């Protein structure tokens, strides 16, 4: 027995076979065969890993040391170019923004959703809804959010929501885009109009406006009155659309069939700049600023009637494009964070939370001092996993950022793609970028792997 194992000392020390030595009997296969079997079982996996993981990494490292075509060895020139090109620096800066904001926002939201979903009645429906975006590909979500972030409130959900709120606080006018006809009125900086000329009580003013689409003229508007009744203590006049349908008519004069513009506020401004009185135009456009004396007064049309409606935020413009894409990312990943954190929550013993309540903790204190610290390991794993994801972010940016702002929204992975497969087809520089990305992800990966090993 002892002689046979001494006979093959080199193999006897092989790791996995070593424990067998203690119980080795004469009938046991010898260690040499064990090692062969071990290698035999490992071989397919090793080959596969070698072909699809190790070889590409090594090849990329080598490729990054060659020029665009791969013919000439250029040393570290690609790396030098990478770290001097403003596009890469912008991409790196964006990656930093992504890593700082996206994972923390997703984790925070996931935590809130997880805690809430424990307490709401239809929690399963809620969870499914939040988790659903995970099932949609990045590309498709990119398209969805392209629509969400459309510029006009009529087409883009985000702008529709913003305009709904904004219209409450800042009501749009009835006649946006109106312009004075003739010289009687000039535009004021606040968006209203004023007369150059002044009027005395008893005078009549003709205040014509143009560039108002027929659709905006209210249905109750009547034909404008050419000569509204005058009064000794009033300045009277007409506010009307100085445009004769079908052509003809005279600018600055109330022609037949021209329509009055109801609902415009007319103010009489005294020489000292104070508003003496005001009136609102009627259905036929006639107004009468009454109770006047002295003078002279200039007339002013207040801007309220001419205010432009909310035009929409340019989400995907240079200023907001990265936050907008991060929003799309948050929408996709909040469900993932919620589910993982929810599992962590479920593993916290209920009695510990009850003990804290009996100890005098409010619900917030229980959350802050017990739940969150006990969830810390889970939160960390979610955060790091998301960081890895975020560093590699590519498709959302590619789909969401319009071509004109792609430089502004650039990230390393996108830059790698654009350099390698875009117009330049510089796969040397592309490989260098890929290596940079790999090195960025590495610490996060190492952290996660270490954790998983520690848990086992």
């Amino acid at each position, binding site marked *: 027995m002892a002689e046979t194992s001494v006979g093959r000392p080199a193999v006897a020390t092989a790791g996995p076979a070593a424990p067998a030595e203690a119980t080795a009997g004469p009938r046991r296969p010898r260690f040499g065969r064990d090692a062969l079997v071990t290698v035999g079982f490992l071989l397919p996996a090793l080959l596969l890993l070698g072909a699809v993981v190790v070889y590409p990494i090594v090849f990329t490292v080598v490729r990054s040391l060659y020029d665009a075509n791969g013919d000439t060895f250029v040393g570290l020139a690609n790396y030098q170019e990478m770290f001097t090109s403003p596009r890469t620096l912008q991409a790196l800066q964006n990656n930093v923004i992504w890593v700082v904001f996206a994972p923390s926002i997703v984790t925070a939201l996931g935590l809130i959703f997880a805690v809430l979903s424990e307490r709401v009645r239809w929690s399963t429906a809620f969870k499914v809804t939040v988790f659903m975006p995970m099932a949609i590909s990045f590309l498709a979500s990119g398209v969805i959010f392209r629509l969400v972030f459309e510029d006009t409130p009529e087409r883009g959900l985000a702008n529709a929501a913003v305009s709904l709120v904004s219209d409450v606080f800042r009501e749009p006018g009835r006649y946006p885009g109106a312009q004075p006809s003739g010289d009687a009125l000039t535009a004021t900086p606040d968006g209203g109009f004023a007369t150059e000329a002044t009027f005395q009580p008893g005078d009549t003013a003709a205040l014509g406006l143009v560039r108002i689409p027929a659709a905006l003229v209210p249905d109750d508007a009547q034909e404008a009155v050419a000569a509204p009744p005058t009064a000794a203590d009033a300045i009277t006049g007409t506010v009307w659309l100085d445009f004769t349908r079908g052509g003809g008519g005279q600018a600055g004069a109330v022609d037949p069939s021209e329509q009055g513009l109801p609902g415009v506020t007319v103010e009489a401004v005294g020489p000292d700049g104070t508003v003496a009185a005001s009136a609102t135009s009627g259905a036929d456009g006639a107004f009468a600023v009454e109770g006047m004396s002295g003078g002279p007064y200039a007339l002013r049309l207040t801007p309220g009637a001419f205010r432009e409606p909310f035009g929409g935020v340019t989400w995907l413009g240079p200023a907001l494009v990265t936050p907008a894409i991060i929003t799309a990312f948050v929408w996709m990943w909040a469900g993932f964070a919620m589910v993982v954190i929810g599992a962590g929550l479920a593993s916290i013993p209920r009695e510990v939370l*009850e003990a804290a*309540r009996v100890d*005098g*903790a409010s619900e917030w204190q229980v959350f802050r*001092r*017990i739940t969150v610290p006990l969830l810390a390991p889970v939160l960390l794993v979610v955060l790091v996993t998301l960081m890895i994801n975020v560093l590699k972010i590519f498709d959302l940016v590619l789909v969401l950022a319009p071509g004109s702002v792609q430089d502004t929204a650039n990230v390393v992975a996108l830059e790698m793609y654009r350099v390698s497969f875009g117009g330049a087809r510089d796969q040397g520089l592309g490989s260098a970028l890929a290596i940079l990305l790999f090195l960025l992800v590495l610490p996060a990966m190492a952290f996660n792997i270490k954790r998983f090993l520690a848990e086992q």
Partner: protein
Amino acid sequence: MAKLEFDGVTKRYPDGTEAVRDLDLDVRDGEFLILVGPSGCGKSTALRMVAGLEDISDGTMRIGDRVVNDLSPKQRDIAMVFQSYALYPHMSVADNMGFALKLAKVPKDEIRRRVREAADILGLTEYLERKPKALSGGQRQRVAMGRAIVREPAAFLMDEPLSNLDAKLRVQMRAEIAQLQSRLGVTTLYVTHDQIEAMTMGDRVAVLKRGVLQQVAPPQELYDNPVNLFVAGFIGSPAMNIAQGSLERDDGRIVVRLGPVSLEVPDAAMDRYPTARGAIGRTVAVGMRPEHFFRPDGAVPEHQRFRARVSLVEALGSEILVHFDVDAAPVVSQDMREAVDNDDAIAALESSARRGTQQFTARFDPGTPPRPGEDIDIAFRGEYLNFFDLESGHALR
């Protein structure tokens, strides 16, 4: 410190089941009251209602003079010890014990002083900086106690605090908790299903069955004079032997007939169960504690002894438990089912009921133990006989 007062307290779940029904119970100021009952009897629910962890469906709960029905746990000034200890795993022992004080914004020095004091009492001083993970079961249990003590609360609530300890440690902690309570004098409500804890620790014991309070009394009183079959069957280990027997008058004496066995009922027993006189000629439930059997010598007259076949002998060193067959019908009522609290034991009881026979257990002094299968003479100290109504289960008092 304060008294706890349950006034018609009911816990009803949305599906209509009542975990606790119309509970009236006072825990006096400084008293150690044990709440005991089989599993699912609502004892933990009652405790959790005091703590504010469970809503009260009906009735009034008072701590001191305050009605606490609608107060949050935070506002009730009570400390609770959980079965699982529920220590905060991320905090050191000192932080665990000081958590409540910290929340109450007690100054740091004061917290440190009180935590040290409690740690001294509990022998935890050298473990103060450790995390719960690094403690043994007994030490964790002490930390849970410490967390309650430092608060100097109006009352302690303990929910089976010893059931996660091994037997030896349990004996030790049982004594420690009882001592600690009498030293601190804090009103304590202690939930357990353990017979020995119920008998040894408290000033009084409250027995609960299916959410309904059965009897509240000092332990010995409860043991000696159970109000019904449930309490009789539940309190005591080994359990009281209960069988159907008929009370008869025989030659001027009152005897109770258990199958072929008939025993004289002395006046002392009749005095304890006065209404049993009215039951003469009827079948009643007869209860006999194992320790009241004895092995007669020649001086015991014939009508106070009987022969029985030994089926099992358990020698415990200080005593022996002898199981023997008696051809008397067992009592199979709802009370008994609840008291036995074990499906297998119930099934055994029912099958023996069909055969009209059952096993009794007797506790004898050690000596020469009988062998299984042997027929031996056994006598009973008749003054300790207990009688219950067969239908209602009430003691015939």
